[in-house]
């Protein structure tokens, strides 16, 4: 097998010492933690009369490590490079070279996006890209987990301003402060309170009043910033008023659209008070009565509150928005106090939850299942290990990269898989056999198509720039610009076709300043753009490709970034560079990508569309028929059938074929005709891609 020299060089270069924060833990600290964990795990096993599973062979390890850390299968070049590296150290050095790499950040992003319900659009009008950028940025900087959580909880200000994406967290539950709090308690403290939203918890100890005492920390939080006083907004309002003469209501609507971009955000430091619901039914308080912020467990929180001068009178309500009760009390920084309580070392559940999450992510089963429904009487499958992990993550100052490195360095990570289920409470003989996540599947398929996949990752801010630019434009625009914007928005309503044409021209003109295109050309291209959109809607890849070629021949820039992003097409970009979630019908969704509506909504179950896609869709169209794909090039470069077979096994499964496999596949092409060889190669690739061994991680 020939190695790809280019890939090899890349890997060699990246085998640098792991990128740890300057104040990160020492190698000795990592090593002693690794030893301690393995000791506890193996002692637990011995106590139960069980043996740890054997250590896996190199090819199983390298595939597992790449999937676990960078979320995709290794390339043939990477497999080769591993084989050439110093056998005494290569497993750990490979882990260290991958942790912290761009591929690692991309893989971590999906996990966080599922937990934090990060979406490309927070709602119909508002971009969620700044929120996603914030997550990617935190991962790139390896921001300590406690700092991350605190930033999310206290975020304030405009949602679309640069570096303020953390506001997306509360905006995910816009105007639903109760759901927001229930999600927060579940996500960060593993405490399920949503039952107590409407009544005392039937199985756990929580009272409805206690729930509202938590909600009170976010009392008075608003989902719009207060920029009414700014001159820009005043000017815009005047402009809209002028335009109303001519365009009536439409000018008002156009203004609203602009204002939405400009004003969406989080405001209010927390009053520490909130009213009980109208239908409150317990004797310990009255309906509508304001309750004061208080925490149900952990340390007491000292607050400096001014008791509001309100009785149990009915609050003012805005029509059709039952949730929108008038705030009670004065701003008193209670949101910051709450955030501090959540992440405090005294909070008994904060470290437990994140340690369990990362353990589960690495090994497939948490020490407490389910990890986000902790009760006072929850017992870990290994209390000693749980305690150690909680202490470790605190000692590591919530450095998640370091914590993950410890777990990956254990012998346990290198052991053969167990075939159990996620609910098993058996001790840890090895990691759980798992199907690739949707994103691992997609990114692995791309690894077989696009060379140097990790180098194609876009900067963390790339997708958010448009939202920032729009916000910045609006918040610093001259009156003339704002008027133009208003007029464009009006045009959108009165003549959508003309509006789209105008936007296309603007986009085209923007991307094409170097190479001006004539109006005539754009005119010619317009039907092609329509055809392209239609072909993509139909999923007709042949028509799509044909149209793209015609557009290229015409010398017209391809539809802009925005258009591509918003369409439901299967652009061959890394999952973390695609819309979140991917559109319905996308391979990612077929394989169970989270819809981001609830926490951890992703799944790895089999379904008809995903199986049909692999049987008759993606494999044939994108890989077998695509001679330019990484996989085809690697296989086609070999003359000898045996070497072709080996190349396919290495590229897809990161291992050599067994002699029996080699013989069996050779037998299929005994006649020397090249058609037989080609058909064997196609069969082989198809079979391996559809195999259990491909989709499951051993």
């Amino acid at each position, binding site marked *: 097998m020939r190695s790809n020299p280019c890939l090899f060089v890349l890997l060699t270069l990246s085998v640098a010492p792991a990128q740890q924060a300057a104040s990160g833990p020492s190698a000795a600290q990592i090593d002693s933690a690794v030893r301690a964990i393995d000791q506890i795990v193996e002692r637990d096993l011995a106590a139960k009369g069980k043996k740890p599973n054997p250590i896996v062979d190199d090819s199983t390890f390298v595939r597992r490590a790449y999937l676990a850390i960078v979320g995709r299968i290794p390339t043939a070049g990477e497999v080769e490079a591993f084989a050439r590296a110093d056998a005494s150290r290569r497993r750990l050095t490979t882990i260290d070279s991958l942790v912290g790499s761009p591929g690692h950040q991309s893989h971590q992003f999906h996990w966080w996006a599922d937990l934090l319900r990060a979406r490309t659009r927070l709602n119909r009008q508002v971009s969620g890209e700044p929120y996603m950028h914030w997550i990617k940025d935190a991962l790139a900087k390896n921001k300590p987990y406690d700092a991350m959580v605190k930033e999310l909880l206290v975020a304030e200000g405009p949602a679309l301003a640069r570096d303020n994406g953390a506001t997306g967290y509360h905006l995910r539950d816009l105007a639903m402060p109760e759901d927001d709090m229930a999600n927060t308690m579940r996500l960060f403290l593993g405490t399920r309170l949503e039952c107590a939203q409407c009544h005392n918890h039937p199985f756990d100890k929580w009272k409805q009043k206690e729930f509202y005492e938590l909600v009170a920390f976010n009392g008075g939080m608003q989902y719009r910033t207060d920029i009414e006083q700014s001159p820009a907004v005043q000017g815009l309002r005047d402009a809209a008023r002028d335009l109303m003469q001519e365009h009536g*209501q439409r000018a008002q609507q156009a203004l609203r659209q602009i204002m939405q971009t400009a004003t969406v955000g989080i405001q209010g430091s927390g009053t520490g008070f909130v009213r009980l619901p109208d239908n409150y039914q317990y004797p310990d308080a009255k309906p509508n009565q304001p309750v004061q912020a208080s925490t149900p467990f952990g340390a007491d929180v000292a607050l400096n509150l001014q008791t509001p001068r309100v009785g149990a009178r009915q609050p003012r309500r805005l029509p059709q928005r039952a949730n929108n009760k008038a705030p009670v009390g004065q701003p008193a920084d209670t949101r910051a106090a709450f955030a501090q309580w959540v992440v405090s070392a005294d909070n008994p559940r904060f470290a437990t939850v994140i340690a369990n999450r990362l353990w589960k992510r690495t090994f497939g089963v948490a020490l407490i299942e389910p990890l986000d429904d902790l009760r006072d009487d929850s017992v870990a499958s290994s209390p000693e290990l749980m305690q150690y992990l909680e202490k470790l993550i605190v000692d590591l100052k919530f450095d998640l990269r370091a914590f993950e490195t410890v777990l990956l360095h254990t012998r346990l990570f290198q052991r053969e898989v167990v075939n159990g*289920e996620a609910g098993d409470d058996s001790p840890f003989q090895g990691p759980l056999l798992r199907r690739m996540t949707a994103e691992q599947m997609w990114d692995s398929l791309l690894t077989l198509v696009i060379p140097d996949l990790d180098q194609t990752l876009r900067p963390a801010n790339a997708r958010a720039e448009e939202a920032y630019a729009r916000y910045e434009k609006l918040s610093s625009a001259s009156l003339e610009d704002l008027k133009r914007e208003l007029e464009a928005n009006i045009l959108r309503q*009165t003549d959508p076709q003309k509006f789209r044409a105008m936007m296309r021209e603007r986009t085209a003109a923007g991307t094409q300043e170097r190479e001006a295109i004539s109006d005539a050309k754009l005119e010619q291209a317009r039907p092609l753009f329509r055809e392209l959109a239609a072909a993509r809607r*139909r999923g007709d890849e042949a028509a799509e490709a044909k149209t793209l070629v015609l557009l290229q021949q015409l010398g017209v820039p391809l539809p802009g970034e925005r258009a591509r992003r918003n369409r439901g097409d299967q652009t061959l970009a890394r999952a973390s560079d695609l819309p979140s979630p991917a559109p319905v019908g996308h391979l990612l969704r077929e394989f169970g990508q989270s819809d981001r509506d609830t926490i951890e909504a992703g799944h790895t*179950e*089999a379904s008809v569309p995903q199986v*049909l896609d692999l049987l008759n869709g993606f494999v044939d169209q994108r890989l077998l028929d695509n001679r330019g794909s990484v996989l085809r090039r690697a296989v086609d470069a070999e003359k000898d059938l045996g070497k072709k077979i080996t190349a396919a096994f290495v590229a897809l499964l990161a291992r050599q074929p067994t002699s029996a496999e080699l013989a069996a596949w050779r037998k299929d092409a005994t006649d020397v005709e090249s058609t037989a060889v080609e058909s064997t190669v196609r069969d082989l690739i198809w079979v391996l891609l*559809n195999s259990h061994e491909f989709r499951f991680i051993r």
Partner: protein
Amino acid sequence: MHLRSLLSSADAVTRRGFLSLTAQRLFGVAAAPTLLSLLGQDPGDEPIVLGPATARNVIYLFMRGGMSHLDTFDPKPGAKTQGPVQAISTRADGVQLSEYFPHLARQMHKAAVVCSMQSTQGAHEQAQYFMRTSYTLRGTIQHPSLGAWTNRMAGKVNPTLPGHVMVGGGGEMPTAGFFPPQYLPLPIGDAEAGLRNSARAKGVNEQTFQRRLDKLAAINRAFADQHPQRKVQAYSDMYDEAVKLMRSADLVAFDMAQEPEHLRVAYGDDDFGQGCLLARRLVEHGVRFVEVVSNGWDTHNQNFDTLGEKCPVIDRAVASLLADLDARGLLSETLVVLATEFGRTPDITKDNNGRNHYPKAFSALLAGGGIRGGVRWGKTDAEGRDVVEGAVSVPDLNATIAHALGLPLQHVIKSASGRPFTVADKGKPVLGLFA
């Protein structure tokens, strides 16, 4: 699989924890009773006992965006809120439709109009979610849509085909909520294109396909022996099922080319018309719940111009659907529902000639599946502002559909976190609509 691991997986209480243990159950095939089905329907739940049903299938037509009631099924001739759209008589005495529906008018003796729908939700996303699930949108849980409830409770009719299909719509789809993902609808983007990837890839003949499958089975068998896990087995079974589907005579359900030209024309040469025709083909082949979506009803601007384009499409398609189902003897077992998330304001906006969101009063149409035809249920006032008689809430409408299907309205199914839910969230079926 060992008894112990079966039971422990049954105990798992993660969101996706209540997953069926074999692909038979993933597909809803009741070929062999599984361990859990012997123990009861599902861990922690009472067995589901279905009531008498008047309908077997549902074709749910969703007018996404909010359909104006005054300009469609609840016209108010002479009222100042009526605008330029006239009312016409129908084959049913006392039931008038707007002039946009001349074809449907001739089918109205088969259908009931509910003029007294009411919702509590006035924003699209929330209102659509409420219509489909009967619960209000929350951040902490997802509720199953009615199609998911139907398949969860009543099971599939045809074991080979999916039980829940959504045609068109483009954007988001109804959720399986806290039910396993097998209850998600199978999305069909374009009725004409049929089920994606259900035919062999270009250049792969049956012989090649079978050769590949044989080799795949061999390599997978070895893996499954080495890794006896539920999910591995589920994949083996799912491949068998998918191939069975590809080769099934029932796959023809998705093949619109089978329909005669005159029928395709009658339904309308457009996405919605062809979607309705596909829906008929699917229920004919035993798909229990099909939703067809029509987009673009959010008529804040130029309400009348827009409806002048949209309504004829609906008129043609729904009238053809009712006539076609009837001619095939399918109408008696198929409940056709035409619904929307809310109505539109009786007052016409002066400068846009539009109507805004209006959850206080709107209309729905039901036909077949035991529904009394030629009926007008409920009443709004003279200007279409308020429901004055026979109010039907969103859960009531869904309870009516569930009742027709024989789904037990009291039966509690718990989410993974133990919260109790019922189909149609305590809505009351409108019994007066049934024959």
